[in-house]
């Protein structure tokens, strides 16, 4: 256990230093994630008509939360992994007694900490500009939200890393991610809260992994109606499903990687 903690801390601290090297680029990435803020403007306008179940303030709170969730669950492992496979950089990592995935996990997790400071500044700025949207969620809601975001990141990472395994068979596995992104945009709650979707659509979407990536944690914090038990259950379930697929593809992929002469 002590050995594992030491490995984790070392990886995190070194990758943190690595991410800090790119702080200027990172600020641009944070800003690039401001789609929810734009959508917020559109929805606040639309809500003034009053035909949705949510008020303008609800929309404002929902989308500022979405902004934070997006910042905390950004994943790019498929592009990094694809490059490692195509350029053969995976080979030296395979010769170390540590699964290469931990390098990616450490990179992603430590990047959060660099990004968070800047993202929170933006959130503060938002509430100064739009004080009527400010609210304090209860501590229990906040803790549940934190857990949900951690799981949402784990789920998104596991899904993308599973797609990344296809890099062993095709040079452009990231095309898969681009296709998936289409569904992610519409079904996760990134463009609109699921609350405004027609009932039957909502019911179906709840069986996919998408709403748990954004809508579920956001609704938890804002206080929209959610089924907490089903939400967490589904997240854990989907993580396990993709984890299983991932390990299967990893083993099959390594055989293939070696077959092609590495």
């Amino acid at each position, binding site marked *: 256990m002590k050995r594992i903690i030491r*490995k984790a801390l*070392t990886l995190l601290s070194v990758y943190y*230093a690595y991410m800090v090297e790119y702080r200027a680029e990172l600020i641009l990435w944070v800003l690039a994630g401001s789609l929810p803020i734009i959508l917020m403007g559109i929805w606040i306008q639309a809500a003034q008509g009053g035909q949705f179940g949510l008020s303008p303030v609800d929309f404002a709170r929902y989308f500022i939360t979405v902004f934070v969730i997006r910042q905390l669950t950004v994943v790019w492992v498929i592009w990094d992994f694809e490059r490692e496979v195509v350029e053969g950089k995976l*080979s*030296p990592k395979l010769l170390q007694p540590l699964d290469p995935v931990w390098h990616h996990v450490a990179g992603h997790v430590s990047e959060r900490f660099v990004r968070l400071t800047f993202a929170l500044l933006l959130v503060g700025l938002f509430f100064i500009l739009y004080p009527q949207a400010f609210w304090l969620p209860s501590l229990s809601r906040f803790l549940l939200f934190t857990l949900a975001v951690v799981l949402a990141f784990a789920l998104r990472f596991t899904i993308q890393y599973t797609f990344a395994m296809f890099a062993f068979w095709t040079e452009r596995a990231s095309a898969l991610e681009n296709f998936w992104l289409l569904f992610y945009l519409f079904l996760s709650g990134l463009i609109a809260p699921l609350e405004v979707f027609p009932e039957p659509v909502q019911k179906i979407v709840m069986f996919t992994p998408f709403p748990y990536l954004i809508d579920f944690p956001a609704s938890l914090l804002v206080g929209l109606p959610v089924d907490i038990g089903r939400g967490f259950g589904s997240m854990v379930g989907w993580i396990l499903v993709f984890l299983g697929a991932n390990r299967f593809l990893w083993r099959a992929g390594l055989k293939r990687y*070696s077959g092609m002469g590495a």
Partner: protein
Amino acid sequence: MSIIVAENLSKSYPVAVKSPGIKGTINHFFRRTYRTIKAVQDVSFEIAPGEVVGFLGPNGAGKTTTLKMLTGLIHPSSGTVKVAGQIPFHRKEAFLQQITLVMGQKQQLLWDLPALDSLKINAAVYDISDKEFQRRVGELTEMLSLEGKLTQAVRKLSLGERMKAELLAALLHRPHVLFLDEPTLGLDINAQVAVRDFLRDYNQRYQATVLLTSHYMADITALCQRVLLIHEGRLMYDGSLDGLLERFAPYREVHIELAQPLPIEKLMTYGDVQHLEGRSVHFMVSREALTRTVSKILTDLEVIDLTVTEPPVEEVIGRVFKAGVV
């Protein structure tokens, strides 16, 4: 007891082939045709602990493929391999802790951070304690004369320094078996010598086994007591470097400087004239005929200077590969 045992090692893999032009591209899109490449065929050898062995062969001979099979990156199509008593492809921790593979200069180190940061990761990954880490880094830094370089961003290092830093990272866990693919590629003469000296030093200090490929013959002559010659996937020679010359170069170069220039026809009667420029002549003479020829030249011709040398190793090996015969 051998530390590396390879028996009838073979590897073939499919390569997609595409004919040029639009038609070829369209065909390539719909139906790929593959051709099987036999990269390594029936290679067997054993290496004892502490040996330094050079792995020679032209580009595409199968050297890198063999190294990859020995490190467990690829699975042999047939045959068996054992390194330090383990099957490499299983990549068990007990195996990984004992070996290292160095291939090129952009491998382990994080480009934008000082090398020391990447080394810290390696220390954690290989379970090296902080105290031991400090000690080993100090020792290796001294052996590689990298003082003061480990705290600079890797991208700011020169090619030679980067290669040395890569070596340091690859050797931090103190492996017993080193696989080195072109460790001096692209380095200037001084850096080549430094890397060579370091490898010799490391081999002696830790009784490490080293298998290295290089295109610089100087690496091989300076380091290796034994060479493996591979050509078109087959092992053509396994033995000492001197033995290689005996076997493939049973001739000597005789260089003379004449008092007066002579026509080539006359010189040809003494031996195979390789080169003639004014009064300077290069002969290629078989070893059995050497003394006879030299004394004949000295009696018949007016010679100012005469030297007899072994042909350069590069030339011998080049000739072997060109002829493709053993």
